[in-house]
C-alpha cells in the first residue's frame, strides 16, 4: 500500500507545474484561446520535447511506457493551468485507441507522428442521439468495392478543426444498440465528403460537428479489424474518464486555494470576509469535496489500470467528480462575489471548464443512471 509519487511521477509533476507557472499564465492562455489557431503549436512542440506526448505509449512505438497513474499526475497539473491544447483528444483518446486497436503495421507510423508532435488526432465517436453511449452509434460504413462508404454525423468532436486526423467510429455491422459491428476509420479532416462545422466550446477548446456524406475510403482507412472495436473504445473511455477526472481535481484544488486566498484579503464590514464562520464552513466543505474527489481518483486509477471492474470504477469516479465539481465550482464563484462572475478573473474560467468537464464523457446523472442499472441487474 503506497500512494506516494515515484521518481517519474515526481519529475512529471515538477516539469508540468513549472511549465504552467512560467509559460501558461492566464493572460497568455487567453491569447491562445482567442488566436486563429485556437491552440499553441509552439507549446505542442514543448509537450513533445518534455515527453508528455509519448507518456502512455509502449516503448516499441517510441513511447515512454507510462502507467495510468503517471498520466493522472500529469493531467492534474495540466488542469491547474487550464491547458487548451488537445492533449486529451490526441493522446488520451485517439492515440490510446490507435494503440489498442490499430494493426501492428498501422500503429507504428501513426504513433510516431503523434509522439513527435507533427500530427494531431481527434476522436470522432459520439453522436447526438447516442450521447456518450457508443453502443447507440448509428454512423454507417457500408462496403463499397474493396473499401467503405461512410455516412453519419459526429457531435462535438473535441480537437477537430485543428488540421489533425479523425478517428471515426462507424458501423460495419449491427444496429444502434449493438456493441458488435463497430469499426474505426482514419480520415483526413479535408477528405471529400467530410464537412466540419467548427466552433469554440464554452471553456475555450476547439471542436467541431463532423458530417460524413458518402465519404469513400480505401481498405487502408480501416484501423484494425472490422466490427470488433467496442472493447477497445470502452477501455479507452475508462482511461479517458480517469484522465479527465484528474484534470478536474487540478481545477478544483486551484479554485479552493484561490478562494481561500481571496477570503483572507477581501474586506467587508472592516474585516476579512474569511473571518466569518459561515464562509469558513463553506470552504471546509469545498476542501472535503476536493479530498474525497482525489481519493476516488486514486481508487479508480488503480481499478481501471488493473482491469478490475473498470467500467463500474470509471462511472463511480465520474459521478463523484461531478458532485464535487458542482459544489467547489459554484461556491468558488459565490465566495468571490461579483468578481466571480466577471470574464476578467481567472476563477470564472476554472468554473467554466469544471462545468464542461461534467458534461464531457458523460455527466454525473448519466453515469449514476448506468450504475443504478448495473446494480439492479447484478
Amino acid at each position, binding site marked *: *500500500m*503506497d*500512494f*506516494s509519487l515515484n521518481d517519474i511521477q515526481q519529475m512529471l509533476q515538477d516539469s508540468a507545474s513549472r511549465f504552467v507557472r512560467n509559460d501558461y499564465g492566464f493572460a497568455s492562455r487567453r491569447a491562445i484561446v482567442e488566436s486563429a489557431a485556437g491552440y499553441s503549436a509552439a507549446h505542442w512542440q514543448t509537450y513533445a520535447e518534455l515527453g508528455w506526448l509519448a507518456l502512455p505509449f509502449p516503448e516499441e512505438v517510441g513511447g515512454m511506457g507510462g502507467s495510468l*497513474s503517471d498520466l493522472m499526475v500529469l493531467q492534474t497539473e495540466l488542469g491547474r493551468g487550464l491547458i487548451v491544447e488537445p492533449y486529451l483528444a490526441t493522446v488520451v483518446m485517439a492515440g490510446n485507441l490507435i494503440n489498442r486497436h490499430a494493426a501492428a503495421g498501422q500503429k507504428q507510423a501513426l504513433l510516431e507522428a503523434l509522439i513527435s508532435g507533427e500530427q494531431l488526432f481527434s476522436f470522432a465517436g459520439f453522436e447526438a442521439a447516442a450521447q456518450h453511449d457508443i453502443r447507440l452509434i448509428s454512423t454507417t460504413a457500408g462496403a463499397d468495392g474493396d473499401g467503405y462508404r461512410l455516412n453519419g454525423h459526429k457531435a462535438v468532436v473535441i480537437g477537430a478543426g485543428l488540421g489533425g486526423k479523425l478517428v471515426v467510429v462507424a458501423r460495419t455491422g449491427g444496429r444502434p444498440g449493438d456493441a458488435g459491428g463497430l469499426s474505426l476509420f482514419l480520415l483526413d479532416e479535408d477528405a471529400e465528403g467530410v464537412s466540419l462545422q467548427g466552433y469554440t466550446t464554452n471553456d475555450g477548446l476547439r471542436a467541431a460537428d463532423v458530417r460524413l456524406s458518402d465519404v469513400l475510403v480505401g481498405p487502408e482507412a480501416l484501423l484494425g479489424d472490422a466490427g470488433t472495436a467496442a472493447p477497445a473504445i470502452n477501455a479507452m473511455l475508462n482511461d479517458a474518464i480517469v484522465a479527465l477526472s484528474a484534470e478536474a481535481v487540478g481545477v478544483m484544488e486551484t479554485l479552493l486555494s484561490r478562494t*481561500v486566498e481571496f*477570503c*483572507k484579503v477581501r474586506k467587508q464590514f472592516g474585516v476579512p470576509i*474569511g*473571518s466569518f*464562520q459561515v464562509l*469558513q*464552513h463553506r*470552504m*471546509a*466543505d469545498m*476542501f*472535503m469535496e476536493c*479530498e*474525497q*474527489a*482525489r*481519493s*476516488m481518483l*486514486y*481508487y479508480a*486509477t*488503480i481499478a481501471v489500470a488493473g482491469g478490475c471492474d473498470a467500467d463500474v470504477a470509471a462511472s*463511480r469516479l465520474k*459521478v*463523484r467528480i461531478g*458532485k464535487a465539481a458542482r459544489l467547489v465550482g459554484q461556491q468558488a464563484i459565490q465566495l468571490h462575489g461579483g468578481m466571480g462572475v466577471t470574464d476578467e478573473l481567472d476563477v470564472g474560467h476554472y468554473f467554466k471548464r469544471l462545468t464542461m468537464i461534467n458534461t464531457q464523457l458523460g455527466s454525473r446523472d448519466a453515469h*449514476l*443512471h448506468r*450504475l*443504478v442499472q448495473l*446494480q*439492479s441487474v*447484478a
Partner: protein
Amino acid sequence: MNIDFTEEELAFREEVRQFFRNEMPASVRDKVARGCWPDREDHVAYQQALYEKGWAGVNWPVEYGGTGWSAAQRYIFYNEAAAADAPRIIPFGLAMVGPVIYTFGNDEQKARFLPDILASRVWWCQGYSEPNAGSDLAGLKTRAVRDGAHYIVNGSKTWTTLGHYADWIFCLVRTDDSGKKQEGISFLLIDMTSPGVTVKPIITLDGRHEVNEVFFEDVRVPVENLVGEEGKGWTYAKVLLTHERTNIAGVAPSKRRLARLKALLADPPAGVPSLRENAVFMARLVETEIELTSLEYTELRVLSAVATGKAPGPESSILKIKGTEIQQALDELWLEAAGIYAMPFVPEQYQAGFEGESIGPHFAPSMAPLYYNNRKVTIYGGTNEIQKNIIAKQVLGF
C-alpha cells in the same frame, strides 16, 4: 501507487480471519448479526478473547503489552472484525485512558492500571462533557480542590456512555481558574465506588439506557490518581482525541452494513419492499457507496503516509465528518428498507433469547431506533461543526 498487501500482511489477514472464525464467542457474533445490542458480559467476553490472543492493545506499543501493529495491520484487523460481526471495542479503556496513562502517567500508575485495562478486567468510562461544557469543553466547571493527600471533587459530568457499567471514570477537572480556561484543567482517575459518586440514567430517543449523568459530591480522590502534571489535562485530552485517527471514520463497519443491505435487496424476505426496482432509492444507495469508497481511500492515504514515516496529511481532518455522515446515510437507507415495519416499537424483539413471533421482517422494527440513536454520531467527539472550525483553522489557515 498501489493498494497491494505484502506477503506478510496477507498471512496476517489469514490469521485474523481464523481468530474471528474460531475464537470469537459465537453468541456475541450472533447478537451483532441480528442487530441486538451486546451487553456488558458480551463486550468483556470478546475483549478478553482478544486479550488472550495478545490483540487487546490494537494501537498500543509492544512494551506495554500492545500489538505494535503497523497501520496496514490495523486496517486489516478492523476490516476483518467488522466483516465477522464483532462488536466494537469499547474505546474508553483500551483506546482512550490506556494511551494517556502509558504516555503521560508515572511508573506506578502504569503498573497499577494498564494490566487491568488490557485484560478488560476493569470497565472505564469518560468524564469530559458537562451540562454547560459541550462544544466549549474547556469551559468545564467540575472542581477538584487539593486537601492534603486528596482532591475533593464536586460537580457533574454528562453523556457518560455506559457509565452504569463502569468501575472507574477518567475525568477532566478544574484545579485552577485564575488563568486561561484551558490551563487550569487536570486529568484525574476516579474510582466509581467512591462515596459521593452517583450515576443517573439518561434515556435516549430509542428508549435505551446507554448514557448517563455522573454526579460528584465531596468525592475524595487520592492525589496519586492525578495523571501527569496538575493543569496539563487539556494537553493530554487533545492527544487522546487525535490518538486514534484511523478508526474514527468507521469505514469497516459501514462497509459491512452496506454489504448486508445489498444482500437483503438481492433476496428480499417477505415484507421487505422490492427496492432494487426503485431507481430513486438505488441512486441514493449508489451515491452512498461511492462516498464510502472515497472515504476508504482517504483513510488509506492517511495510513500510507503513516506507514512510510510521514505525518498524516490534511486529508485526515475529514475522516470524522465524512465517516459519520455516511453512517447516517446508511441509517436512512436501512430505514427505507424496513418499509412499513419501520413503525412498530418492539424492543423486546431484540433481547437475547427472544422466542416470540417476530413482528415484520426481523430487522425492520430496529431501524428507526437505530436511526434515532445514531443522530449522536455527528454530535459526539466534537460536533461536525466544530470539526469544520478545526479544518478552517488548521488546514485552511483562518
